[in-house]
């Protein structure tokens, strides 16, 4: 990595909230330089020779990740869900990720973590590498909602399309049978 692109990543570090960019910095091996086309990752941004990809699996500000929505890569049942996850407690207009400015694309991916929730239909666990590194958008099979509010997973970006509503303390497979199609989410109360 050249000096100037390293500097750009650091700028994004300061611009973002505590703790999270440190995780993406550890994934230095997947940060690439040069001509990144918007279509590879479903994000469009102004043509920028310094385009950089970073990856996040955590958009949850809750201390100890106590209160998050857990999206699991794999479906489950019989009281048990276990696969890599993406955790959050915010509205997300596009599960693909977002453009952080300065040519930096942030992509949401699943990751393994030492986290599990006891929910209405059983345990939703993130303690598995199954799906680790996979993109979250159109790739989640199940949801575990450990918030004290309901969450709605929409089948299209920008809170459009039909949705699955997962109540506070509930977990289940997403309704899609033909293909995974999770695109955005909103937290309701």
């Amino acid at each position, binding site marked *: 990595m050249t000096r100037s692109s390293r500097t750009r990543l650091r700028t994004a570090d300061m611009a973002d*909230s505590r703790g999270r960019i440190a995780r993406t910095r550890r994934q230095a091996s997947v940060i690439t330089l040069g001509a990144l086309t*918007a279509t590879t990752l*479903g*994000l*469009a*941004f*102004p043509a920028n020779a310094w385009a950089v990809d970073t990856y996040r699996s955590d*958009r949850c*500000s*809750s*201390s*100890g*990740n*106590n*209160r998050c929505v857990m999206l699991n890569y794999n479906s489950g049942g019989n009281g048990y869900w276990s696969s890599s996850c993406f955790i959050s*407690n*915010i*509205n997300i*207009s*596009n599960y693909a990720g*977002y*453009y*952080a*400015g300065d040519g930096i694309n942030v992509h949401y991916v699943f990751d393994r*973590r*030492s*986290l599990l*929730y*006891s929910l209405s239909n059983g345990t939703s666990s993130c303690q598995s590498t199954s799906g680790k590194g996979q993109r979250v958008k159109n790739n989640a099979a199940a949801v575990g909602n*450990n*918030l*004290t*509010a*309901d969450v*709605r997973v*929409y*089948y*299209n*970006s*920008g*809170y*459009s*399309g*039909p*949705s*699955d*509503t997962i*109540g*506070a303390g509930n977990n*289940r497979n*997403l*309704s*899609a*049978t*033909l293909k995974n199609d999770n695109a*955005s989410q*909103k*937290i*309701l*109360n």
Partner: protein
Amino acid sequence: MATGDRARRRSGRWAAPGTGVLVLSCVAFLASCAEAVESEGAPRGQVEAGNSIAETVDKTAWPQADVDSGLAKDLKLPVEAYLQTYPEQVTIQQANNTLQRDCMGRFGFDFAPPAPGSHPPGEYNSANMKRRYGITDLGEARQHGYQPPEPVEEWTPYEPEGEVANYVFDLTVSEGQSAPTGQDYQGMDIPEGGCRGESDRIIGEFGDELASKINVDTFQRLKQDPRAIQVNQEWAACMQTRGYSFTSPLEAIDQAFSAPADGAAQDEISQAVADVECKKSTDLVNVYFSVETEMQEEEIGRQRPALDEQKEKNDQVVQNAAAYS
């Protein structure tokens, strides 16, 4: 970038305060029960057992049962009869809050979530009729582009405070940690599933998974239906004359949330206006709607006994919950 994506930490905003709080534990059926709750930055207000939602929540901001404007005005899909509505959601949340507060109080914990109903979605239920096929309202397109007209506000749901409180609430254990206590605390057994498990058992659990499957299934099948494909081509041709290249409206709204955005930029608005006008001239919304209606009537017809049974159970749950309003 859509504002919803910036996580802004609000530590302690809804957390139960440490000092200076007067909390009267309240048995749900006492109509005269009143509770004064003070928390950092939260609106101060009396929460009475009989009137809690009405006094602290702006119901005028709630979504209406019928789409009131645009190309989807007054359209209602058959499956909507079986999907949970927002008012039902609020009623159930309120009852759970009341019961959970009582249970947590038994163990010596404050539990004071704000009254539900102050963060409504734009839609009445998961069918999301007005935005189901992307944007459908010309007035909103002119003002907001593809962005939802209701403020997509950033807020953080209430959290119990402290390790043991979180554990007693619903057996939550922080990432990488172990349970802070055993099966009992303060000499009392922790209910199965914590206080949340207890309130679920008392109220019952609302379940519309069967209806949800139909809601999502017909939408996915719609995309492959020849009638939808045909009208998509007509819409795409219309968009082409306006200078836009998309194969379907769903692709267009997806793209609108993929690009970096500063509010609704003028080019997003122009595209959004073209999108809705082309939907109007091709009658796309009505075509999609009639295809899905046909599919849903067929699926509902096949599964009616199970759907009706689930609805009956759900109505009972809402009734149980309403007793705590």
